[in-house]
């Protein structure tokens, strides 16, 4: 049942704890929003999911595979910016996604293979509304179009989970709304398991099936870095306001707000 399993993960840099005792079980197809104040470890957690970093303790498994030691094809990712290759045209960005997975030293498709990949790329571009800019470079696109391309490119790699790090953070409110719709459609089409870090609570609750709140449950006013953050709330957005029950077994007290 559990597709992504996070077991008792701790992460610290130079013995400074960032994340503490994170355990999480996510079924396939769930959309998990990760929210929290800045500096509370939500981006660190995403880096752990991406396997860009290894946790100091604990492990993360996807579909019961052994923990990854570096970013691999199981994990698609879209960042706030620089998520597409600026030196390739829109279409080449999608073709490259296939080429990276399917070629060796040459790193390029030729002949019929390239034509087939180009056709698939054009079909995808048509679907995500970028057909008319297939030959443009990403710099010529609007922020929303660029992020649509980044998401389409990540999905072209056929990952098992999709990681989004503030994907709409740099967009204006209108574009952001249409991107929500876009992401919703993508999700309905693919049934992808998605983790999205956002600082926008509303966005997190709107898109997620589940919202994780990262915060520091223990807070030493004399030494703010003494303790790491953990998941302090775990909401099921389909049952408004109801926390995922297993979290409540520990009494979580938010000392910070009483300070």
């Amino acid at each position, binding site marked *: 049942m559990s597709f992504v399993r996070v077991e008792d993960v701790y992460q610290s840099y130079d013995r400074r704890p960032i994340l503490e005792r994170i355990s999480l079980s996510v079924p396939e197809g769930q959309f998990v929003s990760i929210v929290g104040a800045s500096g509370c470890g939500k981006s660190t957690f995403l880096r752990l999911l991406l396997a860009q970093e290894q946790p100091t303790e604990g492990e993360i498994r996807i579909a019961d595979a052994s923990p990854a030691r570096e*970013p691999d094809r199981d994990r*698609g990712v879209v960042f706030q910016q620089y*998520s597409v290759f600026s030196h390739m045209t829109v279409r080449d960005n999608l073709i490259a996604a296939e*080429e990276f997975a399917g070629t060796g030293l040459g*790193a*390029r498709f030729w002949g019929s293979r390239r034509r087939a990949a180009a056709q698939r790329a054009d079909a995808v571009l048509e679907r995500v509304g970028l057909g008319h800019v297939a030959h443009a*470079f990403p710099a010529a696109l609007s922020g929303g179009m660029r992020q649509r391309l980044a998401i389409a490119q990540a999905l072209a790699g056929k990952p098992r989970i999709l990681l989004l790090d503030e994907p709409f953070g740099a967009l204006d409110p209108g574009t952001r709304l249409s991107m929500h719709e876009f992401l919703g459609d993508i999700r309905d089409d693919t049934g992808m398991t998605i983790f999205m870090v956002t600082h926008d609570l509303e966005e997190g609750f709107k898109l997620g099936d589940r919202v994780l709140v990262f915060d520091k449950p223990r807070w030493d006013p004399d030494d703010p870095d003494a303790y790491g953050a953990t998941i302090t709330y775990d909401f099921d957005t389909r049952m408004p306001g109801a926390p995922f029950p297993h979290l409540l077994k520990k009494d979580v007290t938010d000392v910070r707000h009483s300070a």
Partner: protein
Amino acid sequence: MRMINRRPERSIAIVLAMIPFVAMLIAYAVGSDVRRAANPADKLLPAPSHVVESAGRLATEPDKRSGEVLLWRDTRASLVRLGLGVGLAAAIGLGFGLLIGLLPIARAALAPFIATLSLIPPLAVLPILFIVFGLGEVSKVALIAIGVTPFLIRDLSQRVLEIPQEMILKAQTLGASSWQIMTRVALPQVLPRLIQAVRLSLGPAWLFLIAAEAIAATEGLGYRIFLVRRYLAMDVILPYVAWITFLAFAIDWTLRAVSRKAFRWVEEDRL
């Protein structure tokens, strides 16, 4: 209005840009006049008309001994040396820049060494080059290459490190190998930077070229000016210096044009 906010109109800007050039020419003409009034055969500041005439002769009349026009022969020899030296340096700089910028192991092994090498004054090793490679072409090309390669390696490895981490991570999640990331992400991302770095290194490259030619050569722009220096032939030296300046400008302009045309995505990046 504050001086920092006063901007010249385009036409005025052009006039302003011309003033120093015109002033220099006038200063020369006046100085030349004064000296020739005292000594009509003055060699130090020959008359402008004399310089122009001599420049025309250099560019058109074949040399009596070799039957070739000296200016073109010297230009060809110098540009070949410059091209080979800078080309070699660019290739090495790009290769090592990619390795050092992309592979932490290569960085650990090479970065301190390159940093040390770059502190060696290239002209100080010129005697070694002459001893090892003889007085032929190799030592001159080698001096240029040795002179600018450390800079190119350091600059390009830095540029590779500046490629957004996001792009490298994205490529990894799409299944790209280290080699694929090097050739299809890092290389095209730094190629425009390579042209910029080469443009910057051309100044030192000319310096090393002329220094090497001055010491041991039988042709070349630097050889010629240092040869005729013995006869105080300012009427040859001045056109040669102007010609070298023009060549440097033309090369720089061409590289910039090539970069703009070939790397449209960078130009659009700035919009």
